[in-house]
């Protein structure tokens, strides 16, 4: 069931992931997500400096519709669980390790630079897409939402093309 890198068989992993999503639909009436938590943290940090400005901001005001803080949200609690689940499970599998992952042809510092830039682009992409691989591809995809399938197709077109140009980062 597990391979030499201690990963579960991909089809079994997929069935388990699908079942987690299904139970989430049943309990909460919504699916999984990750990018929204980052946006809420970003809004929260700004609110420390300018609490009134953020409440009336043309984009971020939506996180204050019900009052309170943008951090009091399903996606933020889900992300806290993600951290716990990732840490505990990698520890149990013997995969927990301080490391910097990149291809053999670049340095750690180059990796950190592109990781940061990549993260910025990723975040902006999730705003236009209204979610990421969790909220759109996985959740919206299984709900048969049109926009989610458009997102997935676009992602699978640009991914391999970009991969060609930045091969040095990874292989």
């Amino acid at each position, binding site marked *: 069931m597990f391979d030499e890198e201690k990963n579960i068989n991909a089809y079994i992993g997929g069935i388990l992931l*699908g079942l987690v999503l299904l139970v989430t639909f049943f*309990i909460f009436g919504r699916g999984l997500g990750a990018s929204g938590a980052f*946006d809420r943290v970003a809004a929260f940090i700004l609110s420390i400096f300018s609490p009134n400005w953020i409440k009336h901001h043309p984009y971020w005001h939506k996180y204050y519709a019900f009052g309170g803080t943008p951090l009091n949200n399903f996606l933020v609690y889900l992300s806290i669980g993600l951290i716990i689940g990732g840490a505990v499970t990698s520890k149990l599998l013997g995969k927990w390790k301080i490391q910097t992952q*990149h291809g053999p042809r670049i340095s750690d510092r180059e990796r950190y630079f592109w990781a940061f830039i990549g993260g910025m682009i*990723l975040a902006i992409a999730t705003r236009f897409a*209204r979610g990421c691989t*969790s909220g*759109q591809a996985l959740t919206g995809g299984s709900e048969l939402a*049109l926009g989610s399938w458009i997102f997935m197709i676009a992602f699978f077109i640009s991914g391999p093309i970009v991969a060609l140009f930045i091969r040095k980062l990874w292989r």
Partner: protein
Amino acid sequence: MGPLFKLYYIPYFWYVILAIITGIFFGSVLTLSGFTSTKKLTGVFYFDDMAVLKVMFTAIVVASIGLYFLSDIGTIVFSKVYIPRTYWISQLFGGLLFGVGFMLSGYCPGTSVISFASGSLDALFVMLGMVAGMWVFGLGYKIWKSLYLAGNIGRVTLDKLFGVNHWIVIGIVFVMAVFVFIIIETLEHRE
């Protein structure tokens, strides 16, 4: 009957606790599947490790069959399940840009979180970059607002779009998945 939190009054405390527990399961399954490895994640676009595609496609098929089956037999009230609206132009652009961000960072948002939690320092830089990227988007919102709202056609699902029963669409997705898996397995075992 579900969705539980939409149909019954349950104290908010349990909403928080169950959301965290759901996240723990979500993070554990992703970690079990090896999604903390940038080599595995980028492998899907270098075509040298297709595990991510197998996991994702299987999960979509399982959740889709489950959701629509439980809705058909009345266990889940489908109208109470949140379905993302379609902004097809904005989402097409977002998907193309997501491929750039994914290949540069080596992660998607969720996998950056579990990878940092399993000790990868590069994932921390992705997470910091993501918060910075959210600021860029929000602060420049007026500049790209028209693109962000472009292609709004509401809550459209594929079965409604094509005017067919949802099981026909799910059947096509299922057959597509099996077809893709057979091709992948055949190529992998030839090596």
